[in-house]
């Protein structure tokens, strides 16, 4: 009994020895070829937004590709990523920065601090046209970035808490979400003349507009996300010539969309992934994938060369994500590890 306590202590110390998790193998990537960049949003106030590089089809990945290339972290809450010309633009919302990288080898080019009188603008989404990159900022503006000088030329006032945006018919369509006034959210889309950079009008599309996309014909599609309750998330369509909402009552509920081809796009929510045909203006095909195997469908990308779907599974938002690859018939092909909350993919052949 005399040494009972000491034995307990020693046992506890020995039993508690446990190895820390091992860092995975990281490939040395020189050029962005044969793979994909995955933007992982991370979590608010965790400073853990990341860009992964995944080599296809080997599946080897660098989960901190941005850090590998820059020696520093991406920041807090990465919201959007876009390739335009020979550069990649990344929006980091809470850090309030735009990161500009080479689209050839991902060499860092410039970090732009998005502040206005010392206050963060909280950039959100990206669109591009005519040598400009347009950036929605949660403070109620769209910033215009000149891709030649890599500086912000102008700020265009729009509605509250703008989110997605897209260009059609030399006009910029900006979804005003008003998300920070929830539940009294906005329901308009601002139309901006790209010649004058002035707002022409606001179009009412439905509660809480978020994503905006344009097809090859110039039709503007908007997701109005509703109130996450009685008013469901719905698809709207705007005629870019008249700037009128020409189909305000699609009968299906969807929460997001992504481009696919000149004739179709993919629309989806937690219940399923569907092919939407622009000619028939309707869902034509349900991709028969097993949705039960996807825990949190957070994003979807279509790979035109492979004719494959890449589902970004956020795995409950607080776990590392998984990119699940399916063929166009919904057959599961393979999976790739990703960071926290993967939301955007850029493919490089």
């Amino acid at each position, binding site marked *: 009994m005399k040494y*009972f306590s000491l034995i307990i202590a020693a046992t506890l*110390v020995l039993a*508690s020895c446990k190895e*820390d998790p091992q860092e995975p193998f990281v490939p040395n990537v020189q050029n962005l070829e044969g793979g994909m960049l995955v933007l992982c949003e991370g979590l608010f106030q965790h400073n853990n937004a990341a860009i992964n590089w995944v080599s296809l089809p080997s599946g080897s990945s660098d989960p901190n590709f941005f850090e590998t290339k820059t020696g520093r*972290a991406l920041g807090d809450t990465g919201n959007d990523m876009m390739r335009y010309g020979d550069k990649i633009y990344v929006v980091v919302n809470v850090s309030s920065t735009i990161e500009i990288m080479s689209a050839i080898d991902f060499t860092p080019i410039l970090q732009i601090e998005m502040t206005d009188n010392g206050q963060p603008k909280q950039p959100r989404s990206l669109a591009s046209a005519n040598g400009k990159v347009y950036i929605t900022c949660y403070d109620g503006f769209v910033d215009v970035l000149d891709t030649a000088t890599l500086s912000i030329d102008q700020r265009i006032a729009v509605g509250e*808490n703008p989110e997605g945006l897209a260009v059609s018919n030399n006009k910029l369509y900006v979804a005003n979400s008003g998300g920070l006034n929830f539940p009294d959210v906005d329901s308009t889309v601002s139309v901006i003349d790209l010649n004058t950079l002035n707002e022409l009008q606001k179009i009412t599309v439905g509660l809480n507009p978020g994503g905006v996309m344009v097809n090859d014909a110039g039709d503007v599609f908007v997701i109005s996300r509703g109130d996450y309750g009685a008013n469901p998330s719905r698809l709207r369509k705007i005629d870019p010539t008249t700037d009128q909402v020409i189909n305000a009552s699609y009968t299906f509920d969807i929460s997001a969309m992504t481009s696919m081809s000149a004739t179709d796009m993919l629309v989806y929510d937690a219940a399923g992934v569907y092919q939407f045909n622009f000619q028939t203006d309707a869902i034509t095909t349900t991709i028969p994938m097993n949705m039960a195997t996807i825990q949190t469908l957070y994003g979807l990308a279509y790979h035109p060369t492979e004719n494959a779907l890449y589902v970004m599974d956020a795995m*409950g*938002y607080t776990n590392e994500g998984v990119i699940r690859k399916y063929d166009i018939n919904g057959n599961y092909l393979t999976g790739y590890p990703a960071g926290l909350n993967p939301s955007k993919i850029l493919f490089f052949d």
Partner: protein
Amino acid sequence: MFAGGLVLPAFAFAQVKVDTNLVPVKSLEAVRIPAELVIYHLPLFDKLSKEDIEQLNTDDVAGLVAKTPGATIRSYGGLGGLKTVSMRGLGGQHTAVLIDNFLVTNAQAGQMNLGQLQSEGLISVKSGVLQNSMNLAPISSSFSSNYLQFRTFMDIRSPERTRVNTSIRYGSFMRREVYAQGSRGKGHWNFGAFGKYRDANGAYPYQFVNGSTPDSGVRGNNDYQDMHFGASMSRQMGHLGKLRLIYRSSRIDQGLPGAVIFYNESADERMNTQDHRIMLDYAKHDYDQNSYRLYLNGGMNDLEYFDPTHLNAEGFVHDAFRNYSITGGYVHSKKIPEKEEDYYSESRLFYVKWGAEQRIEMLESNRTTLGRPFRASTYGLVAGKYEKYKLMVEATAGAQLVVDENNLGRNTHIQFTPNARTTYEFKSRGKRKAELIYKRNFRLPSFNELYFGEVGNSDLQPEIAHQLDLGYHWKIFERYIGWHWELKGQGFYNHVKNKIVAIPTKNLFIWSMQNVDRAMIYGGLVESGAIRRFNDNHRIEFMANYTWQRVIDITPDAITYGHQVAYAPEHTANADVMYFYKGFSFRASNNFVSSRYALNQNVPANYLDPFWTMDVAIGYKHTLKRRHKIGVQLNVRNLTNASYAFIRSYVMPGRHYLLTLNYEIF
């Protein structure tokens, strides 16, 4: 060197008793106790003394609680930062906080912000799993899994003279502070009062690693100002009864620096809190027969939050909350000896205790979506304790009826909290003791968890915790080298179900509180204290503890099944060395927290580095004349200038200093 008040504690739990195995005495007056046998108290982290508290000189009580075995502090910053405690892997809402034997609560948050409770004026801090079942603590405090008990100078009787203790402090980050307390006994009356003012700009430099790049910064918008005031009066009623009236208030105005966000240093949010509490009780301690206590406790807490640059339509956010609480209760304990002679021999005794308590809590807010939450809690408790020779068995049965009401409707919960403890003392009394405890406890969802905007979920059920503790306690005295040494070991197992956690439900930006998780907690702790007295003016002390805990997510089908829960370190340890020579004192205080994960998934991306910090205190006290003493103390915190954080992105201060000048009339 005569016995006087300096007597041996027979056991660690006892305050003043004589170990008759060491000193064969018939009466205290007749014996001279050898100097090496005289000790004031054995230093242990689970019962910090006034001397410990003064030396540690912490910003708030969280710094003291961090030293207690099994405690994990979650600190969001230095002075003024939100600080909560997890005891043995259980959330902060499972810990009852008592000040001068009154429970302090906050129904809105569900737990106390330890960063807002001052450490000045404290004379002891105790922590543990189960209080003495026969004490007269508020009934509801027995319903928590763990307790923290703070006792202030206002809870002790002053002699028939005025006692004054004043101090001024200057420290890093432009910290200034003045504190004064006084007390006086007069006849049957006793009076006490204190006041404190403190401010600081809080602009502390910090270091961090951004990716693989070392970086540094200065904490902005971290200014802090607080004022505390309190007064008490008590009257001795007859030989054994005492009536107490205590008032405490605080007012805090502070900037909120928020998390350190890479590339974005903006911060302009502010918070203002005011707290008023009034406490009244009458207690009669008849140690031979009946002891009882009638208590009443009312509180009002205001919290204002202001974000002047929010990107909503108004351009700002201004939230105001007012919490009301009123508690009244009665507790009675009775000693029933088997035989007449057992009154004093304490060899075979049976105790019973019963009591009831009613608490009303209410929240008002300018947030219309929050409604006007109201909670009525009724507690009932019966307990029995049996002592025979070296065996002690006690059992408690409690029930709580809770009615939650808001514009969303009404919810009623009934919960039962049985617990039991048995101890057995080996060999002679007071030398070695084994202890086994079982408790079933729960914690109610807070008003914020129930009703706060989209996050709130009015259907939440209480979180249930089963606790099993096996302890072993060993105290020895090495007569020949003069060391007193005490060792405690404890193993614990907790099972938590209906764990209340926030998870994203509709999308990443809309989280909601859910009863989804289960957790299993097991581990052990060892604690030791030692003291070596060379003579009355010369001694050295040592105290240390180590806790190992596995706090494991066992939520069925969860990806993180089997993973260590977020922010639960597997290892924590404290080790302090104190040296006293005449008026000089020195203390080196060490705290170690092992690696943790910022989220439940134990992957490298969530990994947080372990840290070790060392604080040093050097002091000198000089008696000017009879009953007048002046003192000076320098505290160096984070001596090694370690860069560390309890919570991801909330970097703590580097090395900083605090100089205290003290004048005392005792």
